[in-house]
């Protein structure tokens, strides 16, 4: 008898648990208090109402990635006519592959993939293609044997960021009347062979070629981290006493570099000895700029949602889309109204 009671208790517990699962869904997805299950059934019956989008995100390892996730989530809302299934792969390709297969099985309308690595996607992209689900890549690219396996790619043009930095420096030096002076530059590179590092280094180098009076004293790997950036910068300052410009390929390394420069008793920024160019333009960097420590910061825009949505709308109408879409990006320097930029900065 007792065991039976226990057994029934167990079942009740489970039921309770399941129903609590259900309420949790309501809480998470339904602010207006509508019943999700009915919503789902509706979805099944008249699937045309919503465009079902499955997103497989790399993870939430950096502020940039979190801002990117936020942008995608705020774009693909039910008010905008989307039903979003979001999956965080926690830095693992196997999770992304599993998620993709689940999406294919659920027959979502579109898959958005931010691939963690460039290789190993052939099989699953083929499956998506066979199932008639367009795959839109964001941020990072993939290496596949057949380019038609994915529909489009949206992301940053790192090369043009590098070029932009070069052009900005060109103008700035002109304005300062140092256009003909000898300019000594060092570069803190990002993790070697990463897309961002290659693009930014090449882009800046292409502008450098036009200027005989610019010399690149050294380029070294700072691994995109603050500590490594600081170490490398300390070394630079010891080796080269007369650095004019520091190009730091992301904000974190810039922070490290600023610490190293200040520890060495030098100053940087618009009023300082050393010109600092940084990339990413996160909120913290803009704040540092407002304090007068960074000369210019070149944005790496995480706001990919609207562009992806535009592509999907085009595809819905049966139009062709461009295979590679670069996101619009800008730069910041202290001549702008930084206060108001920082106000609305999400990352």
């Amino acid at each position, binding site marked *: *008898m007792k*065991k039976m009671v226990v057994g029934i208790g167990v079942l009740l517990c*489970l039921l309770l648990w399941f129903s609590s699962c259900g309420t949790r869904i309501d809480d*998470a997805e339904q602010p207006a208090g509508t019943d999700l299950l009915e919503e789902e059934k509706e979805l099944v019956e008249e699937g045309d109402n919503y465009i079902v989008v499955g997103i497989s995100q790399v993870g939430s390892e950096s502020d940039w990635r979190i801002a990117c996730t936020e942008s995608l989530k705020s774009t693909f809302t039910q008010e905008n006519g989307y039903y979003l299934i979001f999956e965080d792969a926690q830095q693992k390709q196997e999770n992304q*592959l*599993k998620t993709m297969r689940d999406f294919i099985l659920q027959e979502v309308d579109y898959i958005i993939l931010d691939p963690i690595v460039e290789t190993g996607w052939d099989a699953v992209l083929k499956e998506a293609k*066979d199932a008639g689900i367009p795959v839109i890549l964001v941020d990072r690219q993939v290496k596949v044997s057949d380019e038609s396996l994915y529909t489009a790619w949206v992301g940053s043009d790192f090369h043009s960021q590098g070029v932009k930095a070069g052009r900005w420096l060109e103008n700035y030096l002109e304005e300062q009347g140092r256009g003909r002076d000898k300019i000594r530059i060092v570069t803190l590179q990002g993790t070697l062979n990463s897309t961002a590092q290659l693009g930014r280094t090449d882009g800046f180098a292409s502008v450098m070629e036009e200027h005989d009076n610019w010399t690149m004293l050294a380029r070294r790997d700072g691994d995109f981290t603050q500590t490594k950036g600081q170490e490398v910068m300390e070394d630079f300052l010891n080796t080269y006493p007369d650095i004019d410009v520091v190009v730091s390929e992301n904000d974190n390394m810039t922070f490290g570099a600023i610490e190293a420069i200040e520890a060495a008793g030098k100053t940087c920024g618009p009023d300082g000895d050393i010109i600092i160019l940084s990339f990413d333009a996160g909120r913290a960097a803009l704040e540092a700029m407002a304090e007068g420590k960074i000369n210019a910061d070149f944005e790496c825009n995480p706001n990919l949602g609207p562009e992806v949505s535009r592509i999907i709308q085009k595809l819905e109408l049966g139009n062709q889309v461009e295979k590679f879409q670069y996101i619009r990006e800008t730069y910041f320097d202290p001549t702008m109204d930084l206060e108001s930029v920082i106000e609305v900065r999400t990352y």
Partner: protein
Amino acid sequence: MSKGFGSKMKNISDTNLLLTITIVVFFLMYIGAMLFLGEGFLKPQALFNILNANAALIILSCGMSIVMITGGIDISVGGVTALISMCCAVYLDKAGGSVAVSVLIALLIGLGFGLVQGFLVAYLEIQPFIVSLAGMFFARGMTTIVNTEPFNVANEAFVALKNTRIIVPGMGSVNRLGNYVDAYVEIGVIVALLIVILLFCVLKWTKLGRNFYAVGGNSQSALMLGINVKRTKFIAHLLCGILAGVGGFVYFLHVGSGSPSHASGAEMNAIASSIIGGTMLTGGVGNIIGTFFGVLSLSTIQNIVSSAGLDQAWWTGITVAAMLCLFLVIQSVVMAARKKGNVK
């Protein structure tokens, strides 16, 4: 009537009772998912996808269950899996080796870990937790010493094997383009199922299997029964090591890449699966079929979380923990109730 039911319950062994609970819960969960979440879960391929993704975990959990039945634990299996993936990947990609040899490498690594850990636990009587903790540290560290960067293997023979699919007849479905898509499983699933069946038979019908239970239940009385306790423990760890070797290769076959972060947390998933499958860490109680369903339950709940639109990856952790908690409490309550009943 209830009395009849009760006495019938009493006749079921602890192992079988816990097994029954696991299987019932799994089916309830899956049917619930089919009813409420529809779409994806209705297709047989959904189940096969779970199997494909978890073939390695099934094998690792089987090894874990055996060790746990003898009253030990092995938390090195995840690290060993990562090490095997990395070694095989480096061997296949950088040294251009053959697939057959890479299988051998995987088995040897697993065997090595099993031998050393088994020896330390059984013959030097060092706590299995500490031994396998060191094993985990060693395996994880070695993985990054072998190679630090994650990379995909491009070896053609290997990729062909990785992409080999075994069609399950009559289980396919029609997709939205109107094409019929066959349902499939990967090779690893077949390996996993064979191992489950094999180990089930070993545990059920061989002397060795009964020794495992005896040693875990009470090693003192096992000793009096003339069982070589040390050797039995050694064999359990050895078996777990070999299974980690097989599981490691199956994992490698599934992901096709080497990475230091591979299979992170796999040991905890294996332990959780074993527990949900009705194996008790105190030893002497457990079942391979239960472990199999434990793995399925664990990944089904993860799938439910994701298709229910609970977007945060964090939810997975919380739900799995809730499930674990539930099972532990159920097991504890049921066992306590039974003990009381027996005393009466």
